[in-house]
């Protein structure tokens, strides 16, 4: 069966200023372009095209994560709050199993630094979980940037689906089985 037409449910409209509506539409446009692009990176994680080595898998994940960080840095609310990957990880440090400030260089994840940490399947999975946590926080900042509660709800759902797909693909990846 086709998926439910949830988009056609009527909801009480909010009163937003024309400026807020325009800002939301511009943000949504950028978010759609961004998500369409990172989805193409995430497609590499689908079962038939899984990266063939731990190094490639990690490189692919770092590429994805850095795109997300770059996008969120451009959001007005992130600029106002002086968002940085360094600050984000510093604040949340106790919640990461492997990820640390040593993995950041020039405001981005450093593939070389992460490669030095990832020495086994176990550490790959731990660090990929940590990176997913960072992605989740970054995408939540994107969601909060919408003025409209309806758009926040929709984008929360869209990003949750995207992250669930990436998390599932990473979980299935076994670096020890690939050379």
């Amino acid at each position, binding site marked *: 069966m086709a*998926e439910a037409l949830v988009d*056609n449910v009527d909801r009480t409209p909010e009163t937003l200023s024309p400026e807020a509506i325009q800002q939301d539409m511009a943000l949504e446009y950028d978010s759609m372009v961004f998500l*369409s692009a990172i989805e193409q990176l995430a497609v590499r994680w689908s079962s038939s095209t899984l990266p063939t080595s731990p190094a490639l898998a990690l490189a692919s994940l770092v590429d994805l994560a850095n795109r997300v960080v770059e996008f969120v840095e451009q959001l007005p609310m992130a600029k106002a709050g002086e968002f940085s990957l360094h600050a984000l990880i510093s604040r949340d440090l106790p919640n990461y199993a492997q990820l640390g400030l040593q993995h950041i260089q020039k405001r981005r994840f450093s593939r070389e630094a992460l490669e030095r940490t990832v020495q086994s399947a176990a550490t790959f999975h731990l660090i990929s979980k940590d990176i997913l946590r960072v992605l989740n926080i970054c995408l939540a900042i994107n969601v909060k940037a919408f003025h409209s509660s309806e758009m926040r709800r929709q984008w929360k759902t869209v990003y949750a689906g995207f992250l669930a797909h990436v998390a599932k693909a990473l979980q299935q990846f076994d670096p020890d089985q690939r050379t």
Partner: protein
Amino acid sequence: MPQTPESQKVIMVVDDSQTVRNIMALIVHRLGHQIVRTRSALEALSTLNEVVPDLIFLDITLPGMDGLDICKVIKGHPRIQHVPVIILSGSGQEFDKMMGRLAGAADHITKPFEPETIRKCVETYCGPSDSAQEGVWQKP
């Protein structure tokens, strides 16, 4: 059942990526049309028994039967052969475009795409909608 404006069309998307289906749903909704989302050839063909959409966006790479084969099935079926099919693919290569045309597709869109590309395509094949959301994408 609520009345829908005549300009509101039914647009079908067939893609195994939930994210692509969700982006397409948002775009189509903002443009004031209805969306039907399916994730596989089987699901798409089953849905086409019940619904005749005004436009179909079809991913070229699907589990089981691929998008080109589904396109050929659609174009061989008298009840739905008039529905324009737009092939979505991760490659902008001429070969994919040619294969799409040979299968009967009206057009080809390369992923990743911009909402504006989808909008132009929808307007080309469905016309403008009277129900487009206020302020929809004034940025470019």
